[in-house]
């Protein structure tokens, strides 16, 4: 068991992102572990709507005063929505990484095949434990 919140309803990646199916789209964010490690999000750089993203490829960055963290997409697809609240309230990522701090939504282009590469909540918790967290 880790000290970090890992909701049962989501899927995860080793880059500490989560994915949630919301209708046709996949909503994406960073995990509680990632948010706590960064601690103090002051800036989020997200792609424009319509941009194509690829699984495991950088699509943006999330920054604290001291550190930059690259963001990697769990799925390939096209950006359909971004969380515009984050421009003026980046701290939402720390306060609520799984809800109000969501980053973007994409229409996945290869959902079935790519889903197999994601981690279940239990697998992600195991991954965190293996990092000594």
């Amino acid at each position, binding site marked *: 068991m880790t000290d970090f919140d890992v909701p049962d309803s989501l899927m995860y990646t080793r880059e500490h992102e989560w994915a949630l199916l919301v209708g046709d789209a996949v909503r994406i964010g960073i995990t509680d572990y990632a948010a706590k490690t960064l601690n103090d999000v002051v*800036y989020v750089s997200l792609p424009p709507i319509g941009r194509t993203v690829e699984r495991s490829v950088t699509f943006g960055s999330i920054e604290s005063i001291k550190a930059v963290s690259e963001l990697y997409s769990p799925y390939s697809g096209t950006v359909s929505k971004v969380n515009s609240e984050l421009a003026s309230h980046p701290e939402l990522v720390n306060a609520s990484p799984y809800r109000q701090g969501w980053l973007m939504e994409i229409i996945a282009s290869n959902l079935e095949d790519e889903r197999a590469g994601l981690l279940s909540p239990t697998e992600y918790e195991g991954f965190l434990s293996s990092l000594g967290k």
Partner: protein
Amino acid sequence: MLKRTPLYEYHIQHGKMIEFAGYDMPAWFTSISDEHLAVRNGAGIFDVSHMGRVNVSGRQSGAFIESLVPTSTTSQPPGKSFYTLMLNSGGGIIDDLIIIKRPEGYLLVINAANRTKDLEHILSHSSDFDVAVEDITDSTTMIAVQGPSAVRALQPLTTTALSEIKKFMHADSVVGSARATITRTGYTGEDGFEVILHRSGIDDNSAALSVWGDLAERTKPCGLGARDSLRIESGLPLYGNDIDETTNPVEADLQWVISREKKGYVGAESVTREMTSPPRRLRRGVVLDDKIPRQGFAITNATGDRIGEVTSGSFSPILKKGIAMAYLDLPFAQVGQLVKVLVRNSPTDGKVVKPPFYDQRLYGWKRTAQQNI
């Protein structure tokens, strides 16, 4: 194993620890932003015990220090604390430091990372002088109390009237139960004090921990993260980032520490040469419209020609914008100049400013001094 300051016991219980200059230090306690804003709006405390503290005493200590720095020393009044530089013979900066001028000699406060180098430099130049040089780092603790409420925060711990210690002055005192030297200096741009606690008797950290614990009831404990974001926002250089042995005081925008008439100090000939013509480049501030600049990012003009480089980058919680300290080629170092900062290769608009980045009517020690008149 990493070195520990006398306040380590508090830090491991409350702070997010990182390595800095060989020490195990807190990067933050709550969040860098919260700690940063607490200092600008109230008061914060910093453990700066890792910085080197060197006593220079003896019959010729005045003449010796005079030969070591470009700032006139013996003409400074007693009770003074002043910022200066030690230069190498080429005029490059060996370290920046505070010198506390005491009745019995000079107390030098130097960067933790340069402690060995500085001591070698000091000792190698001391042989012609009747002086004693003593590294008192490990027998002292140093706590910075910074912010507009610093006087109110520290006063309960001492009978010395803190409002009587003017900016860039110091007093010998007792703080808590420890003999102390209190200087009205700091690395945040705000009013405040740096308190050196002299440890008496054997290895006992309880007096220092007690002072820190008492201060923590009236102030916000702050880590190295906020220390860095505050000093960048104030325009204060960090050795290793913004100044080093390849930068001279003129291009580093620290020309003011040079006493023009002074000769005979280490590096004096080079400095005289540097002062006869404009520098090739100049240290300035840059504010970005968007994104956060980081150390090493290139700066270009509108047509993409490289004109400079970011030496320190951060996000200003006051401006809510990315800010940088940078060296710019002289033609582009004018305040108001528009530049492009390559943020991970993406050109981002920026404007050249003369720090501090905050409005000095609203923040900084000058506004506190104004309010106290």
